[in-house]
């Protein structure tokens, strides 16, 4: 039996702590997981230690569908060099389907240039140094 590699070793550059570790563990399962409040039921991002809406500390890491629409969209023409990153490089902030105002930011794949705001998207999983990394791609039938 082998000991599983800890999540912070799979994502050595990520700022993982007790409050957000569920997000990164979710990535290993190809899930986008954010804290949902056990008191008022709202999700929030980033993963704070308490619900920003009702100040409850009763948070339940809960996977989301990963579906949403592009809310903000940029195309980087230069930036830091990193494995798997080439410029121009798209970055989108997606408003997630489950809750108005709940957003998550990553890159977009299978797009060409800057993805249009309002484009319906879903999660796509990239490989970063052997670990899954969430990105977004246009949903079937979505135009760009």
């Amino acid at each position, binding site marked *: 039996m082998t000991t599983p590699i*800890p999540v*912070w070793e799979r994502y050595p550059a990520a*700022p*993982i*702590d*007790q*409050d957000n*570790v569920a997000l990164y563990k979710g990535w290993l399962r190809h899930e986008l997981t954010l804290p949902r409040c056990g008191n008022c039921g709202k999700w929030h991002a980033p993963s*704070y*230690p*308490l619900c*920003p*809406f009702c*100040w409850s*500390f009763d948070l339940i890491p809960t996977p989301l569908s990963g579906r949403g629409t592009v809310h903000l969209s940029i195309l980087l023409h230069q930036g830091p060099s990193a494995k798997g990153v080439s410029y121009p490089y798209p970055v989108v902030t997606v408003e997630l389907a489950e809750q108005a105002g709940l957003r998550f930011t990553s890159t977009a794949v299978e797009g060409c240039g800057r993805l249009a705001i309002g484009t319906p998207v879903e999660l796509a999983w990239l490989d970063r140094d052997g670990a899954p990394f969430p990105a977004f791609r246009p949903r079937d039938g979505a135009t760009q």
Partner: protein
Amino acid sequence: MTGNRIQDRIAIAGVGSTGYTRDGNRTARSLAAEAAVSAIRDAGLDRADIGGVISSAGVGSWTIVPPGATEMVAMLRLPNVTYFGDGNPVIVSPLLDAMHAIYSGTCDTVLLYHYNYRTPFSSRRAADDPFRRHIRGYDNLPPENARNAAAYAAWASRYLHENSIDREHLGRVAVNSRTNARSNPLAAMRSPLTLDEYLAARLVREPLGMLDMDLPVDGAEAFILTTSEHARDLPHTPVLVHTAAEGLVDTASDEEQLASLAHHGQDIVVRQLRARSQRSLNDVDVAYVYDGFTFITLSWFEKLGWCAPGEAGPFLDHAWHDEQQRLLVDGRVPVNPQGGMLSEGGTQGAGFVRDAVHQLRGTAGDRQIDDPRTALLAIGGFFYNSQGAVLIRDDNR
């Protein structure tokens, strides 16, 4: 030129604390948020009432990691913030910042918070914790320097060289704090400590040993400050900031360059407190005298004028209450009744402010001192963190 138009105009209307631990597994954000929510609720207020947010997580905060003020606003979704900032890590500095923001009318009510989080550099257990990797470290690499904590060991060597102080005097400070911490449920170290045990503790940065240095802890404090008028409409007896001061000499944080122990930040603070306070040492009912390192407490006693320069040793002998195993100045005034930095936890004075508020407003529970009106807080060491305050009970409610 200094004045004190702000005297008694600003009150502390709420407090919240997580308490302290040496083996916590929560983030600094979690601790700070809990203390903040507790303080706001303690003051009988809600998110819309908070106009200012000030942290002690600013420049030079070597023990401090996020959250700064803007992150706190986001965590609590505070909608009406008109003033925010991250101040000096030692508590009177951001306290002054909060007072000034309220007095000037920039905002009416401030959430002020401070927290401690053991870094990989401050504790072996923290160094083994993978969740503490991505935080800021020291500016200067040890061992070939006399900066930060090492500066105090270095200046302790000089203090002991110049004065007739022996390790038993330093030990009195440590035992006093531990004795007091034993009845404080928020304190990290509550096991009994004898002078013999102090003397037997291992040396770390000689001449200072394990029990001469304050404790790296996890925990947080938060305070609600507002105008004295507003505070009188809130649930608790207001605690007024009679005066507060910081002091800095021209060598500032160049610790090795300080000209002499005869003149450093503590001297400036005491001069300010005297010039800007209507209360004297005789009025003090409870004293919080910084014990981040034991010899700092001795220096404060001299600088405050409780004894002459170089006379802190005999002064401690005189103030020592052997039966109670703690200090009582003039047989009456307890020193560091929450356990000091040495035994409650090294909070850069924040624990002092919280305990002073509880004592003055009568919410200290089993540890309540009989009817205190005046608390003296002498906080910090000699360099960038020399501070002081006089907090008083509001008798005009």
